[in-house]
Structures are given as C-alpha cells and as structure tokens.
C-alpha cells in the first residue's frame, strides 16, 4: 500500500474492482491512515461494550436511576442550571474538533506553523475538558457517589459513570499528549519531506474522541 496513485474506478464497480484486484483492497489509502481507522474501529467496540453494559445494568435495576439532569446541575451566580457543566464540556470538545479540522486543512496547504499552533490550541481545549471532568468527579465523589453505591438512586450509577467517563477521559488525555508531540514535530519541520498526512491521522483520533462523547452525552447524560 504505497503512496503512488493507482488507477481507480469509482462507485460500485470500483468497490468490486478494489476487492477482487488480488492486491491491496484500499487504493490510495496509506498504511498509517488505514491502521488508525482499524484501531478506532476496535475502540468503537470497546466503548460500545461499556455503553451496552450500562444499558444492561440500567434495565435490570428495580431502583430508580438518578436524575442526571439534577446530579450534574450547577448553581452559577445564584441560578440553578441543569446539566450545565456537561453542556460546556460538550461545546469545548466541539470547538476543539473544529480547530483540529482547521489544523488538518493547514497541514495539507503546507502551512506548518499555523497547523502546529492550531493543534496546540486543540490540545489546550482537551486539557480544559479533562480539567472540567476532574472537577465533576471531585464534586460527585464529595456527594458520596461510589462505584458500589450513591445517595441518589440505583447503585449501578456510580460504576457506569466512573467507567465510561473515566475511559473517555483517558482517551482525551492520551490525545492531548499525542497532539502535543505531533504538533512539536510539525513545528520543527520533521514532515517537510514526507508530507502532512500525519496531521490528518492525529486528527482522526481526536475527532473519534469527540464522536464517542456525542454518544456518551446522548445515552448517559440525556437519556
């Protein structure tokens, strides 16, 4: 699967031709990108297992599930706003996805300084996200939420919460490190000869982290 452009047909004929060509099936896709996608596919299954596990425990329990709208509410300037912290975290993560998309674009335009700066901005938003998550965890732990029980309702709530958001938070943290390393290498000019596909591959990981949050937000926080 080298990077030389291969002759290709589009559409369904192309699909058949790609798979029966007796060579690499993914035409014009580099190894790096293919492997990142396959890793993300495996990660999809991991997060799906967590979310399906959460679905199972929530369906099996006969104790009412805690009202997430209230559990994650904050009082800001005297106003009691439901779920506000999670909403802010969602917006921070979407903003970071946008700056990442810009970084990929700049990379392909070979504007390496802009690409690196945008990646570092993305990493900064990632740090903000993890910071807010740490605040959220601290708040819930102080309120007595534990993996084996909590004062608000079904005891399985804590286990699902810490497992799912914790695993996602680890992904964000690793993403911040990954982004910073690649950004510094981009800034140093390490990819001037090889090209800037690495920015897109790093971006794939980062967008995936945002993608997983979309599902966690919908199923865990809103449901």
């Amino acid at each position, binding site marked *: 699967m080298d*990077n030389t*452009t291969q002759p*290709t047909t*589009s*559409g*369904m004929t*192309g*699909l058949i031709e*790609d*798979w029966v060509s007796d060579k690499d*099936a*993914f*035409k*014009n*896709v580099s190894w790096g990108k*293919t492997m990142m*996608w*396959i890793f993300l*596919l495996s990660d*999809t*299954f991991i997060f*799906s*297992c967590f979310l*399906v*596990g959460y*679905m*199972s425990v929530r*369906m*099996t*329990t*006969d104790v009412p599930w805690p009202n997430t*709208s209230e559990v994650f509410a904050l009082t800001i300037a005297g106003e009691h706003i*439901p*779920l506000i912290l999670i*909403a802010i975290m*969602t*917006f921070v993560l*979407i903003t970071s*996805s*946008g700056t*990442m*998309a*810009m970084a990929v*674009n700049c990379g*392909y*335009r070979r504007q390496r300084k802009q690409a690196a700066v945008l990646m570092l901005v993305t990493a900064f938003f990632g740090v903000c996200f993890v910071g807010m998550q740490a605040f959220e965890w601290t708040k819930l732990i102080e309120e007595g939420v534990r993996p084996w029980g909590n004062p608000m309702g079904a005891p399985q709530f804590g286990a699902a919460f810490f497992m799912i958001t914790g695993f996602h938070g680890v992904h964000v943290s690793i993403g911040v490190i990954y982004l910073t390393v690649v950004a510094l290498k981009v800034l140093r000019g390490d990819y001037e000869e090889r*090209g800037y596909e690495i920015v*897109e591959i790093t*971006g*794939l990981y980062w*967008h*995936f982290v*945002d*993608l997983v949050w*979309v*599902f966690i*937000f*919908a199923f865990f926080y*809103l*449901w």
Partner: protein
Amino acid sequence: MQNNTDTQPQQHPISLYFKVWGLLFVLSSFSYLVDYMQYQGLLRWTLILVFMFLKAGLIVAVFMHMVWERIAFTLAILSPPLCILVLIALMASEASYTNLNRLIFFG
C-alpha cells in the same frame, strides 16, 4: 457519494468546515435544550437519537473525511459496528428478563 481519484493532497474549501462546525454547535444546543425543556417519554428519546446521529454523521463524514474515501474503505470501516446492534438486542432481552425476576422475587 463522490470519489476523487487524486486523494493525495485533500483540499476542501475551509468554508465547508466552518459550516459543519456551526451545525455541530446548533445540534449540540438542541440536544441540551431537550433536557432543559424537560421533554419526556418518546419525544425525548427520538430527539436525543436524531441529534446524536446527525452529529455523529457530520463528524465522521466531513471532519474524518469519510465522504471522500472510496466505498471499499468506507464499508470496511463502517459496516462492522453494525454487529453491535445484535449485542444490544441480546443484552436488552437478557436485562428485561433479569429485571422481571427482580421484580417478582425482590420487588
């Protein structure tokens, strides 16, 4: 689905990214509003799922460049997660059975 044969330097107009970015913000606000307005029942679940799939679709299609990949690649990556639907069905039937037993014997 469009395919460009020269996938090497992927150049897409930056305005497209801004549009998708804006759309993601709007959709996120909508999903937050579902909770804020305290919609309940079927309406709530439908809205949550619609906004979720729209957001996920936009991220995968545009931000992760899936619309510009070849069909062979797209199918290889996006079709395996469909297995999860089987897992959901299995676990849901198992869980409702457990719940029923708990209600009968511990309820």
